[in-house]
């Protein structure tokens, strides 16, 4: 088995479509998926690099595994469902903490999936509606599609929160607009864009990691886990 050069982890609440996104990208199809048990992973050859992409289980039961999957990750894809405001909130409440074990210069992407289910056009449903949970306010629309509950701005705001949480300077990381996506695993909308943008941004990170240090297997002895040291060094 080839050893991967870098790792990307998909995180997010159950049923937001992590597995579907990954299958859409890797296998170009949208099969019915069952709830992921534990996790699964794919190896993707991108240019000369092998990148492993981990699909994690969103179920609460497997939540504890997230930290281990994220350990040393070069990028994390935080996934929510644009029609479930709660799923974005969960990212902040439950999943962001799992990324503490990721590598220090880990990249983040915020992905709102299932845009095919909501009314078309960004910004159409409730500009000020915010991301409060619960049903959408105005139900004047007879279309079977639901008004979108999460707007791209909300994702961008969340992305900025991540940076704050990670104590990262906006200048040092890719812009929010570049790393927030709205996708549909069903139609394939933006799926390639998401993964390929991420691969392109992650390769330099991998190269930097490779240039910097010895392999991670001996890190444990010499270095402290980054998540723990970081707060200490920041005022």
């Amino acid at each position, binding site marked *: 088995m080839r050893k991967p050069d870098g790792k990307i982890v998909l995180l997010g609440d159950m049923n937001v479509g992590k597995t579907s996104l990954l299958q859409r990208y890797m296998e170009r199809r949208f099969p019915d998926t069952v709830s992921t048990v534990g996790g699964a992973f794919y190896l993707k050859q991108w240019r000369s690099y092998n990148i492993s992409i981990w699909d994690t289980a969103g179920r609460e039961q497997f939540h504890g595994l997230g930290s281990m999957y994220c350990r040393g990750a070069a990028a994390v894809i935080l996934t929510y469902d644009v029609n479930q405001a709660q799923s974005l909130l969960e990212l902040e409440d439950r999943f962001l903490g799992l990324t503490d074990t990721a590598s220090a210069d880990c990249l983040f992407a915020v992905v709102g999936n299932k845009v095919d289910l909501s009314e078309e056009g960004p910004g159409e449903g409730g500009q000020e509606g915010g991301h409060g949970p619960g049903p959408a306010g105005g139900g004047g629309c007879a279309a079977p599609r639901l008004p979108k509950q999460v707007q791209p701005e909300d994702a961008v705001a969340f992305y900025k929160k991540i940076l704050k949480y990670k104590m990262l300077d906006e200048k040092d990381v890719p812009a929010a607009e570049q790393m927030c996506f709205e996708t549909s695993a069903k139609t394939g909308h933006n799926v390639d864009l998401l993964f390929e943008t991420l691969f392109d941004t992650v390769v330099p990170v991998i190269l930097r990691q490779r240039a910097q240090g010895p392999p991670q297997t001996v*890190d444990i*002895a010499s270095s402290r886990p980054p998540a723990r040291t970081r707060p200490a060094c920041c005022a």
Partner: protein
Amino acid sequence: MMSTKAFTLVPAVEREQLMGDGERVSLECVECCGRNLYLGTSDCFVYHFLLEEKTVPGGSATFTATKQLHRHLGFKKPVNELRAASALYRLLALCDGSITLVHMLSLEPVPSGARIKGATAFALNENPVSGDPFCVEVCIISVKRRTIQVFLVYEDRVQIVRELSTPEQPLAVAVDGHFLCLALTTQYIILNYSTGVAQDLFPFCSEEKRPIVKRIGRQEFLLAGPGGLGMFATVAGVSQRAPVHWSENVVGAAVCFPYVIALDSEFITVHSMLDQQQKQTLPFKEGHILQDFEGRVIVATSKGVYVLVPLPLEKQIQDLLASRRVEEALVLAKGARRNIPKEKFQVMYRRILQQAGFIQFAQLQFLEAKELFRSGQLDVRELISLYPFLLPTSSSFTRSHPPLHEFADLNQLTQGDQEKVARCKHFLMSYLNEVRSTEVANGYKEDVDTALLKLYTEADHDSLLDLLVTENFCLLADSAAWLEKHKKYFALGLLYHYNHQDAAAVQLWVRIVNGDIHDCTRSDLYEYVVDFLTDSLDPDLVWQYADWVLQKNPEVGVQVFTKRPVDEQESRFNPDDIISCLKKYPQALVKYLEHLVMDRRLQKEEYHTHLAVLYLDEVLQQRPSASGKDADVTETQAKLRRLLQKSDLYRVHFLLVAALDWHRLARALPFLTSRSHLTDRTRGAGLPVESAILHGKLEQHEEALRILVHELADFPAAEDYCLWCSEGRAPPYRQRLFHLLLAVYLGPGPSAPELPVAAADLLNRRAAEFDAARVLQLLPGSWSVQLLCPFLTGAVRDSVHARRTTQVAVGLARSENLIYKYDKGGKEICPSPEPWSRPCLGGWSCYYGSVPAFSIYWKMLRARHRAPFCRKTGDTGSSPVCHNY
């Protein structure tokens, strides 16, 4: 989910062999080291068996366990764990909180009584760091709360090397190098016992469920995770394999690459580590021990011991292939790479790839099939042999045994579906085309190319011809029969040609052109045959078909002679033979003679004359049909004229060889017996121009000019005549011709008003060609000077020029003479200025524009005298130059 048979469960120790009829007694732990099988019981006994494996011819393994000894360890508690340290010949037995060292064979405790006390569980380090072969590293969970201890165990003593405290109470441990993998109360961690650094893995509530910590290889552990997961974790705290999904109540796990085996109260389940899929489920009730010992997996209930015997990987793979599970088979095969010697693996893997390729092929998944055939280095004949009749009858190929697939042939594979057959054939075509020039085809290029030829033929594919005209290895007999069957006669000809049977090829093509057999591959086949014969190096073949090509089209057919390389023509084709062959085809003969005379410039009068005669004959034949005398000059006539003018050879022939070859010609053209006859013919036939040319060649210029002037009144032609006739001759010859022309203009004969005008015109335009003095005598007195002004001016100027030139020459000669005399006599002389001072010297330089010529000469003379040159004239020495002429 489709299942695989990866293991069979074989009983090893029956319950009767254990503890007799003790109903209460149960099996607590198992250890297996080589052939030694140790069992620990709830009543503190250790049993030693020798385990013998026998493989019966049918392929299934059986085990017989022969009891060696059993010994009571001296406690009242069950034996919790047994571990053999074979290098020390010791067995470590955990019982009642202490680890006792006993001899592996005698089961006697070591005399020193060395033991580790206060242990609730222990693990041997299979990847020890000490490097001391006479000790083993043992890690124990201490009875002290939250404490781990590391010992070195020697033959008869133990030594503690490390004690660590853990954040929570440890419940299970495994070791690899410096790393301990621990199940704590609420989570799993990796702990480096040399640095004390801990790494969280993931939470797990060990109080609710029994944790499993199992070292599965270098730096990697298998752990029971939440939700019945089998999780993989490395010492770095990451997972490199996706988890497998067990049932919730797994009590034991083991690894037998590439499988993870798990045991719960009802079943033994087998998952592949390669794709995480569950592969097999074996019902097994009340199992409570599952462990692997150097590749041997042992499972036990409280009463009996069984061995899980893995089926040979090859068998598993074959089973997968048999159920068309190509992907899984390949994954398994690749995964097996590290367990099988390289050479053996490669052979096996190649075969699997080939088999997989045929499975894909049978499903018409050609892209995948091709890739598998390619990577599996398939003997391409295996594939060809699926297609009936494609392999040459002479091929020595026999399919590999055991067979790579189950199909007799393509018809069986497609069940007669013609559309599928066509697709398969199309695939084979492209595949063979791709591989025929690669090393895949080495050793059986004949088979490949012959098969390809057959496919192309059948499909009426354009590439058939490309195949045959480039390097190929098509077998003649087989291919010829096939092409003939499919009426590909043109291609068959190419095949014959490629096999150096040009005669057969041409014969076939000729039959196609003649319409005896039908093949419309080429509409220009006749031209093709002509080109072919032209390029043919076989004169016999050319001669054989010369008549045929000439009959079809003399002008094109003659190319077989004219277009071949000159050196070859010279060495192998005698022009006279060709000419006699061409007699029946006048057009061809003309072409050939033209080729000889004009292209090859053969200087043989016979050809020239013959060509001229043929031209003439043709012109004469055309003549009557042309309306009137002034009909346009035909192409042939122009050719004839050109030949008559340019060539000097036909005349010589007439004069010298009249009796010999001319005789033959004369027979063909009886009216031509002499040169004069020829001129008569031409004139009589109304070919005055040609007559004039011939007269010219006979030096009968007067007659020629007379024809041109009087009969044709073509004055430019007459002038032209003077020019070409005198080409390459001395000037007087030309002058003579012009004078003759003038004489014709002015002389007696049918007078016409335009003749004097033509004469004056001639004189004025070509003054230089005449001797003015003679002209003046000829001219009638009545002509005005005005009429001849340009001529006279020119004549006078010429005359003056000639005189001066002569004077200069005389002067120079004299001075030369003087210098010579001075050199000889050595006395002072002064040259007379006479020769050059009186006539205008400028005339020299002016006329010729060559001042230097004269002045150099002048200077030369002065230099000789080393003194002012001529005092008499007061000349200072520079050359007088005059421009006033």
